[in-house]
């Protein structure tokens, strides 16, 4: 074993990634009937993981580059390592995963219970799987997602990236709406196609590495130093980018997301949109930009166009949706467009904004999906038309929903605003037209979000919701952390930006771009004068 001692004695990342996996195994061993014990154990493991990742976050030094590095030779024949490490970009997404998972568990407390018979929408082709499996899959997914954000070996990243498909496939296909099987397969096929295209590119990357070094290595740090032939680089870039674009998802390969989000349970949809889809945008900034800097610059114009289309297309489609979860999925496509725009505008401001937006979008979408999920569960329908005037029968719930809706439309003062503004303003420095067009989406966002709120929560109370109970304490507790974080990061985003900015700056240095000179430079008074 090629053991390189890390700065700290404990392999923090391995422990943090391994803990949920261990939890999944423990759950599998628990007796089948003890549902409550299963849930408590699952939350305990997720909570412990959260504590661990907070400890990691506290130890993190914003100016220290890649940290908590662990590196073990795994398959020396192919230069493959089990290598983990976090920089600022990875850290915030790592934390996001650790925060969201226990919240989803808490919010989905009764979701996987075998109550399908009582709930018309869910009495479908097959009985639902057990509570145990649900929570074990969520924990497994958390372990894999944490690993993805921490992986610093491209091969390991690819493995975990693909492996996340398996628990997510079973979460969608095993628990969800009537057409969940279709949605699960669609999700899987799209992802597999993307993954295998990426596999070809990973193989190609390995071949390049093997041709240039006697000792090939799949470590990110060695791959960034490769001198790849421009043509090869373009092709490999395309391979990686297509996989990430499907994952993110961007127009025109987005069609799996609305189906998957609609059929999945709200909790699963949160895991999918708030965490898994971030792997796509994370991969773009981590791998596409760093390994293929020349090709990234070459592809930028096309990607900017696609991103702008995503922004508008997602927003316009969202306005037309009748299903709450599909609507939220389309808003996410629009927001992912903004994130991709921010990344490929290649300015420090836009890329840092995009990274922060990954986190904020995760929080806002989680709040939206979960609160909407509470109502969908009560009303036994996800159709917007089946609601109306809920704010009179469930004032607390509709209040929280209003908050989620406002954060979804990026109201100033709430977290998404800061990041969306940064991403668009940064883009404006380089691509004015694109930034201007994309900014239209803010108006559209207000439209689709407020229409959603207005049609479901305000107006005369529909008879079907007249007896709807308000949120239970457990449900409120689950979303309170999200509200706190959205408010906190909205009013005081500095801590997050302090972590993100250095990492983004060094990434962009790798690409070899610097911010364009401002057209009307402000001459700062120098200190000597």
């Amino acid at each position, binding site marked *: 074993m090629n053991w390189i001692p890390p700065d700290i004695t404990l392999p923090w990342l391995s422990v943090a990634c391994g803990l949920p996996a261990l939890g999944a195994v423990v759950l599998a061993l628990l007796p089948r009937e003890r549902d409550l014990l299963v849930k408590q154990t699952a939350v305990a493991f997720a909570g412990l993981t959260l504590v661990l990742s907070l400890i990691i976050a506290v130890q993190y030094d914003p100016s220290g580059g890649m940290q908590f590095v662990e590196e073990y030779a795994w*398959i020396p024949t192919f230069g493959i390592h089990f290598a983990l490490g976090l920089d600022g970009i990875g850290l915030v997404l790592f934390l996001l995963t650790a925060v969201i998972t226990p919240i989803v568990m808490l919010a989905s407390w009764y979701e996987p219970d075998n109550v399908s018979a009582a709930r018309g929408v869910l009495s479908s082709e097959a009985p639902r799987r057990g509570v145990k499996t649900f929570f074990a899959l969520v924990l497994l997914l958390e372990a894999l997602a944490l690993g993805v954000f921490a992986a610093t070996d491209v091969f390991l990243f690819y*493995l975990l990236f693909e492996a996340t498909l398996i628990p997510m496939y079973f979460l969608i296909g*095993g628990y969800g709406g009537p057409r969940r099987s279709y949605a699960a397969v669609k999700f899987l096929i799209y992802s*597999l*196609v993307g993954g295998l295209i990426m596999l070809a590119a990973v193989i190609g990357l390995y*071949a390049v590495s093997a041709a240039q070094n006697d000792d090939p290595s799949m470590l990110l740090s060695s791959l960034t130093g490769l001198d790849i032939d421009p043509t090869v680089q373009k092709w490999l870039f395309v391979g990686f980018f297509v996989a990430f674009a499907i994952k993110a998802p961007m127009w025109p390969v987005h069609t799996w997301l609305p189906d998957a989000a609609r059929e999945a349970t709200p909790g699963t949809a949160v895991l999918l949109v708030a965490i898994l889809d971030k792997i796509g945008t994370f991969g773009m900034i981590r791998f596409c930009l760093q390994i293929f800097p020349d090709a990234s610059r070459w592809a930028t114009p096309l990607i900017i166009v696609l991103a702008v289309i995503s922004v508008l297309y997602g927003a316009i489609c969202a306005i037309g949706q009748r299903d709450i979860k599909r609507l939220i999925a389309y808003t996410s496509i629009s927001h992912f467009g903004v994130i991709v725009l921010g990344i490929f505008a290649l300015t420090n401001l836009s890329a840092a904004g995009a990274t922060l937006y990954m986190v904020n979008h995760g929080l806002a979408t989680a709040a939206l999906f979960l609160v909407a999920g509470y109502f969908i569960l009560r009303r036994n329908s996800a159709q917007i038309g089946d609601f109306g005037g809920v704010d009179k029968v469930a004032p607390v719930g509709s209040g929280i929903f209003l908050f989620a809706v406002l954060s979804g439309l990026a109201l100033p003062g709430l977290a998404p605003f800061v990041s969306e503004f940064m991403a668009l303003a940064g883009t404006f420095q380089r691509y004015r037209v694109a930034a201007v067009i994309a900014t239209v989406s803010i108006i559209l966002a207000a439209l689709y979000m407020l229409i959603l709120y207005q049609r479901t929560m305000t107006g005369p109370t529909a008879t079907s919701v007249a007896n709807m109970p308000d949120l239970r304490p457990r449900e409120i507790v689950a979303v309170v952390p999200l509200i706190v974080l959205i408010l906190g990061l909205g009013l005081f985003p500095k801590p997050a930006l302090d972590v993100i900015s250095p990492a983004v700056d060094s990434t962009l240095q790798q690409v070899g771009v610097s911010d364009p000179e401002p057209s009307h430079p402000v001459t700062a008074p120098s200190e000597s004068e």
Partner: protein
Amino acid sequence: MSTVVLAQEFTTPDIEYAKVAPLLIVFGVAVVSVIVEAFVPRAARYTTQVVLSLAALVGALASTIQLAGSEQVAAEGALAIDGFTLFLWGTLLVLSIVSLLLVAERRVDGGVTAFAGQAAALPGTEAEREVVARRLEQTEVFPLFLFAVGGMLLFPAANDLLMMFVALEVLSLPLYLLCGLARRRRLLSQEAAMKYFLLGAFASAFFLYGMALLYGYAGTVSFAGIAQAIGGRVGVDGLLLGGTALVAVGLLFKIGAAPFHMWTPDVYQGAPTAITGFMAACTKIAAIGALMRLFYVALGAARWDWQPMIWVVAILTMGVGAVLALTQSDIKRMLAYSSIAHAGFLLVGFVGVRNEIEFSTAAILFYLAAYGFATVGAFAIVTLVRDATGEATHLSRWAGLGKRAPLVAAVMTLFLLAFAGIPLTSGFMGKWAVFAAAWQGGAWPLVVVAVVASVVAAFFYVRVIVLMFFAEPAAEGPTVAVPSIFTSVAVAAGVVATVVLGLVPQPLLQLAEQAARLVS
């Protein structure tokens, strides 16, 4: 007078008995098994044969391990005992042991083996009913099995064309018979045997013809001699090209590569499932081994002549395997097409070499081991899903298996994921190794095609998983037989190999790398 002259001319061949011990053990015990068949009373035959066959294979495996490090030409140049041969021998023997356990399984079919009680009793006749009523068992399968294994061991070790042809026949003839011996659905089984025999005979004839042409070209059948003749050639020679094409046909037939794959689905479907698993894993390994030795050692210098042909065959094979598998409704036929697709993936590694044969050879060796274990395991699972008429191989019968028998469905899922090349399974590492080797050899377009074929292939594997886990079980669904220790061990071996080779492939990769040397 004349006898004296003959004795002078005849020199006894110099056989390195120690080096060919594994072959001798397997063939020797096979002959003993035939004698057992004749003299041991019926009641004791099954036990005797199982013990004897297992002992032979384990003994041969032990002696193969002892030979590790050998690198020489033995038996007057007829056999090459090198790392390549020994690695394949080890793989073949381990997989044969696993397959033998499936052959010997009795519990899943109510206390008798899966083979016809009396092959001579025609299906549907009074004689057959009597055989069934008396619960007769035919234990000839064991010597036949051993002969087939012997032929397979000989095949990749053969170092001249003549020996390769003998090995081809020795491995094929017992297999033709074994295919026709199913206890259930005998007509289908006999039809499969007939088809396999006729087409196999054709392929052998092609091989023989090619051999004759190559002999005409080089004046020798030894691989080293042919390589020498090619090395000194000028221009294009029709004999060489024709001979190469024809021997390739013979070998590609055994591998199940398109367009010589037609027999595969029918034979895989009709043959007793234990034999199907054995054929799918071991025949393919032996034939790929022989193909590599012939084309790398003897015809290596003519690479530019045969490479385009193999490119076309590889693309065709992957396409046919992956696309036609989509349309199958029978699990055994689907696995047959999947094995065709895998032959295509192997050919990608085979053809994607430029200078460094070792890369590609090591990758293929690893792939073969990974594929072999998953294949035998998957067919072992197929033997367990049964209804009143025997194995329930129609895919619709597998619906909802995940609820009836979660463990069996989960294990099958693991094998299917390995076939699909999902990460953290052996299949993924195998694909990675082979594709990486091919890309390094400059065959990146082939790798891209292979990846696309993998996507298509993944779809039909996933379809079965969906069917098992997310479909409503059929009302009169099949039951899952409780296997004896034999099948359990076979399945467990498949599971362990699939998981371990997926997680820690390094030891076997390293072994394959060390073994990737071909003497000539």
